[in-house]
């Protein structure tokens, strides 16, 4: 069964539409900015923070305003929004920490991740209980894969996938303790890369067996997989085993091979070990010549939302026949050759491999074809 994807929405520091975000990226801007004493942690950090002006008013917490802003775009992309109320429609919510600032304020129940799902379910009057995915930095991509499998196995006709994460003192202090944050705008895959920028984002998309529910079908989901490194809870595998296997199983699922891929939207956090690991995994698949980029230099690492927002922007890139340069990349900085885009590239690109890796040894890969 075919699984179509469309009605995508996104919010990040660049704006509140997928095309607007893409255009800003294409013009070579970055949404990552300098914060001299970020969250009073006594250290200069570069972060991708969303300006309140981009968000709808109303909801009390920022993450709910972000989600609402993205979902509004998704509603506009559907021919008939009543499909959301069907008992054949599911909701998948992806986040690592949700509204974690509530915990710091002494309100742990307000930080509970299931609240995000309940909130959206209630707002959209959806029938089925939400599935909240919290699998670190692969959550967003895993949510899409999960939803597509539900449609393939006839558990649902349509799946709304949403994801969001904030930049908070909670996450930033942790990444600083790991010495994992960059001294400037991050430089994925570059020889001088020195760490990540955290960013915040929300994104949403709809998967369906029925292409007619969309005003415009954006892509077809071809296959996906996840795999664990079984190696270390925070450090990536030196051999890229989990990423290698997730890509391998995604190809098997899609009945495709490496030569069918026109473009890789990779994870590229700009830490020394992660980017090196990715180059090894892609090299093992003989994918060294396929154009590849990371969006992290444009708007930071958006954690649980990353796999989702990067998928919808990657698909927009296929739609606009333009692959974006990998922001911050100048000089090859991995032991294995990979074809990191150093300039925007125009042409006809149809098939995208999207990958993500994260803490807990988690890895995921999804394959999408331009509609």
């Amino acid at each position: 069964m075919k699984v179509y994807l469309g009605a995508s929405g996104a919010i990040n520091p660049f704006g509140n539409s997928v095309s607007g975000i893409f255009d800003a990226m294409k013009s070579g801007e970055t949404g990552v900015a300098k914060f001299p004493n970020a969250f009073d942690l006594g250290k200069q950090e570069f972060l991708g923070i969303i300006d309140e002006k981009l968000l709808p008013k109303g909801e009390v917490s920022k993450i709910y305003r972000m989600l609402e802003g993205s979902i509004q775009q998704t509603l506009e992309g559907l021919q008939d929004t009543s499909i959301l109320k069907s008992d054949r429609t599911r909701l998948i919510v992806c986040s690592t920490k949700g509204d974690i600032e509530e915990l710091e304020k002494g309100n742990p129940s307000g930080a509970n991740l299931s609240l995000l799902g309940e909130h959206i379910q209630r707002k959209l009057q959806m029938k089925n209980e939400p599935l909240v995915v919290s699998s670190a930095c692969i959550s967003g991509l895993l949510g899409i894969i999960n939803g597509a499998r539900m449609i393939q196995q006839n558990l649902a006709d349509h799946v709304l996938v949403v994801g969001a994460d904030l930049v908070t003192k909670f996450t930033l202090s942790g990444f600083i303790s790991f010495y994992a944050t960059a001294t400037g705008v991050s430089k994925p895959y570059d020889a001088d890369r020195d760490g990540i920028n955290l960013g915040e984002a929300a994104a949403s998309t709809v998967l369906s067996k029925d292409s007619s529910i969309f005003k415009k079908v954006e892509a077809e989901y071809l296959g996906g997989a996840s795999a664990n490194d079984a190696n270390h809870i925070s450090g990536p595998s030196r051999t890229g085993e989990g990423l290698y296997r997730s890509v391998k199983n995604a190809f098997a699922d899609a009945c495709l091979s490496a030569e069918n891929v026109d473009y890789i939207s990779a994870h590229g956090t700009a830490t020394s070990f992660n980017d090196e690991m990715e180059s090894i995994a892609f090299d093992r698949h003989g994918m060294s010549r396929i154009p590849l980029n990371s969006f992290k230099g444009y708007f930071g690492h958006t954690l649980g939302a990353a796999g989702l927002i990067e998928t919808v922007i990657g698909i927009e890139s296929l739609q606009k026949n333009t692959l974006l340069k990998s922001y911050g990349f100048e000089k090859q900085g991995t032991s294995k050759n990979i074809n990191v885009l150093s300039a925007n590239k125009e042409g006809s690109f149809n098939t995208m491999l999207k990958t993500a890796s994260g803490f807990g040894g988690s890895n995921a890969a999804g394959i999408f074809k331009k509609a």
Partner: protein
Amino acid sequence: MENLEENLKAQIIEQLNLEELDLEDFGNDTPLFGDDGIGLDSIDALELIVLMEKDYDLKIANPEDGSKIFRTVNTMAEFIRTNK
């Protein structure tokens, strides 16, 4: 700072939750990382930076310096004595 080395060993066991390790199980020259030593990992290395800052008021700005400083209990003690 006479018992610096012994104190460090106790602090390492305490801070890194090395419950199955006793003070007698490793010497001042035993490698802290790697298979021929007590087998600490990358998170332990970061925790040792925290330990140096909290208990000895010594900041290690570049975590890569840690690989030399935290090689053994002796190298840690030497770093503390030189920089205090």
